[in-house]
């Protein structure tokens, strides 16, 4: 028998609630659910086939489609891109950029790569001391200028240093900024012009709700995002923000931050998220 609209209503609503409770943005949830509906309405189902199970399976596939974008493998990129590779980290205030850079540096070092950090946050109180401490603990070179310096200049210097000393990867930190601040978003555009970054990584937190969509949109406009990292997943969040960001940027989630220590970073696995959402 053919599946009709109203057969799906209850299951779809339940699943939409599940998405919303997991921090998937309203606009994104609605779009995913709408696609599931389009896919199922008019199709045939066998007698006794549970509509709820059919809908959930279609939803899982729908979400996988959102998450499996442009299959970027971070490790492959690092391996195959000519050195030095420059990676710039962007995002709003407090999402975990600086800590994430330290984690990525730790991971790369353990994989045998040489890493240089660029102290691109030349603005916030204690920013230099924070990244200095990380560089010291990790045993990596930090390129820095005085407070108030032009971030593009610091990052540029770090890349020159990496080239001269044959270092593999430059991880460039930037100051947190709110996307409503035109000057600061223009500053990112300038960094994009001056620095030919191999990867631009957007860092946002799993705790964020609907605003993750607006942030991803604005940051993507200022400095085209190649991939994102979702932090603070360990704060019991279901991780739905990953779906909002992947959907908005059409770019993959590269890693998840799962704690405050250097080892607390894992490659993003879409199946993990599906388990969190549905099991």
């Amino acid at each position, binding site marked *: 028998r053919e599946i009709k609209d109203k057969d799906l209503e209850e299951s779809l609503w339940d699943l939409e609630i599940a998405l919303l409770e997991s921090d998937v943005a309203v606009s994104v949830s609605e779009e995913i659910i709408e696609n599931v509906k389009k896919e199922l309405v008019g199709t045939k189902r066998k007698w006794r086939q549970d509509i709820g199970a059919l809908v959930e399976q279609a939803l899982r596939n729908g979400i996988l489609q959102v998450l499996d974008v442009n299959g970027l493998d971070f490790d492959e990129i690092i391996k195959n891109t000519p050195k030095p590779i420059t990676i710039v980290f962007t995002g709003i205030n407090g999402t975990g950029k600086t800590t994430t850079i330290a984690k990525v540096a730790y991971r790369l070092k353990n994989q045998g790569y040489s890493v240089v950090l660029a102290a691109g946050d030349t603005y916030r109180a204690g920013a230099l001391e924070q990244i200095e401490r990380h560089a010291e603990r990790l045993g990596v070179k930090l390129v820095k200028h005085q407070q108030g310096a032009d971030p593009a200049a610091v990052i540029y210097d770090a890349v020159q240093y990496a080239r001269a000393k044959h270092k593999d990867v430059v991880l460039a930190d930037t100051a947190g900024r709110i996307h409503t601040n035109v000057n600061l978003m223009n500053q990112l555009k300038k960094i994009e012009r001056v620095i030919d970054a191999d990867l631009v990584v957007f860092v946002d937190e799993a705790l964020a709700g*609907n605003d993750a969509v607006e942030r991803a949109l604005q940051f993507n406009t200022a400095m085209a995002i190649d991939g994102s990292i979702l932090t603070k997943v360990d704060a019991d969040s279901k991780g739905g923000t990953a779906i909002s960001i992947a959907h908005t940027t059409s770019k993959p989630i590269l890693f998840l931050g799962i704690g405050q220590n250097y080892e607390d970073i894992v490659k993003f696995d879409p199946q993990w998220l599906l388990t969190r959402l549905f099991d």
Partner: protein
Amino acid sequence: NLGSSLRDTLKKLARANRIDEKTLNEVVKDIQRALLSADVNVALVQQLSKRIKERALKEELSGKLNPRQHVINIVYQELVALLGEPITVPLTRHTVILVGLQGSGKTTTTVKLARFFQKKGLKAAVICADTFRPGAYDQLSQLCERIDVAFYGESENTNAVEITAHGIAELKRHDVILVDTAGRHALESDLVLEMKAINDIANADQRFLVLDSGIGQQASEQARAFNAAIGLTGVIVTKLDGTAKGGGALSAVAEVGTGIAFIGTGETIDDFEKFEPDRFISRLLG
């Protein structure tokens, strides 16, 4: 003064001179969508919708309100009730502790609050009880230096409780002592214990949860946990210079039964305002 998108929704009721259930259902669905998009807790939205619908149907339209006005008033009243009264801080000798999730803006807010007291003529002092985050001591001491407010910290000491005890003893001649703590979340049980210990030793009179305005569905649960640990006396909502609607903060105060004292509206020390419910609600529904 509801946001423009909700005002359009409510136009559906504009021409009616009585509320019919079918239109009301449509309107409530739109209200739900607005609240959910604003990050209000899902369960809370469901409770609110139920109440709004019941009230809209059973409350008699007093002669002068049309159905649209009637529903607007109900939504507004329900949200105001959830927010509670704005929290006002005493201008007497007391100790304040600031707690919250990682990166929410505690350190920056501590100095903003110190400045608030300083402007009121009180002698404020700040204690750095974050022994975990690299550069925490430098960040806080640099900010304090900018407004010439006393700062106490021990950069080599990893015992936050000890530092707090020393600080309290040292800062006897100050009116308001503010204790900045490290970020933590409900599942980090050792950190929750640390927070309790710091609060006990500080004997804090005001215990503020500093919450990022962009927080989603985790807000209620995290606020509940912080409240269970040290008993919150208020919430400070940060980063409202962004585009987040703040429904998480609303959910948090509704869950805990406290109110909002201040809001942070930028990175500089002056980006700090007393909380105003009307402005918050119209932003939430915008």
